[in-house]
């Protein structure tokens, strides 16, 4: 339980301000300048550079099992990835992944 409300409000306000500053950083400061070609070439890969790294530890060491690798979650992740690449559809990917997770948990 979080009982120290002063600390909580400090975290809420500073996290909000800091997060906005991060989001506004380049849009705000560099707004009227154009970026060089090498920078654009790197930025094309921002999405595939950040999100897989964010998700990999969550899949391999899931919080729900206390960080122990879990076959059901691993299978669900692979199914979500395969269906997402095959169908090019976010929803199909989520339904397939969560469906796989429920199926394996139900059967085991």
């Amino acid at each position: 339980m979080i009982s120290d409300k002063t600390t909580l409000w400090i975290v809420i306000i500073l996290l909000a301000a800091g997060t906005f500053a991060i989001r506004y950083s380049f849009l705000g400061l560099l707004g009227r300048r154009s970026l060089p070609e090498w920078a654009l070439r790197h930025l094309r890969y921002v999405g595939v550079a950040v999100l897989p790294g964010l998700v990999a530890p969550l899949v391999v060491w899931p919080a729900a099992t206390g960080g122990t690798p879990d076959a059901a979650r691993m299978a669900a992740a692979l199914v979500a990835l395969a269906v997402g690449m095959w169908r090019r559809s976010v929803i199909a990917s989520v339904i397939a992944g969560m469906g796989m997770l429920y199926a394996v948990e139900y059967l085991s």
Partner: protein
Amino acid sequence: MSGSNPKSAYWAGFRSGSPFVLVVGPFALLFGVVATNAGLDLVETMTMTVLVIAGASQFTALSLMQEHAPTFIVLATALAVNLRLAMYSAAMVPHLGRAPRWLRMLTAYLLLDQVFAVAITRYEERPDMSMGEKIAYFLGAASPIVPLWYLFSWVGAVAGKAIPPQYALDFAVPITFIALVAPMLRSLPHVAAALVSVIAALALAGLPFDMGLIVAALLAMMTGAQVERLIARRSRGDA
């Protein structure tokens, strides 16, 4: 074709953003439930979710506060999780950088993973879009997602403690991120970047402050850019 003026671009964005309500809704619901169980009241939960509007960092902050981590560590870690947003901000500069300040502030506030993924995909597919169309498309994509984020955080906070753990909602978060990435893996440089990101993030997971993720992302971006250059050079050589 749709997207030929700001109004149709807005609705094209709205349609592209709409499927994400099915993933953002449960994610927001989960945050409301987790925050309530962590001891936050309705005002605290909603203030956090509306002002921060970055789910992964909100979960990070809550879990560290529950472990009574020092405030500095809570903030540094939660903001490190959000550093990826700086890269999204940079990626938006060629497209939205010349918009008026208030529009740049508005789009910065609305720069969520899902909105970014939808917008950048469209901008790359259609380089001929005008800036007005790009802004309209962006706001259209955010329109179904952001109100749902607020609403379902509130539903989660109110309905709170009734969701049993066997629904495995914990895993809705990673599955959402995977579903966002999979359709982006459309060329060899993209696949190479994603592989490096995964391997490096796992190898560097022990680094403090989530710096492992930032380093992994930088390595992955460099990989994508290098592979792209090698392929371009080879195809020029063959021609």
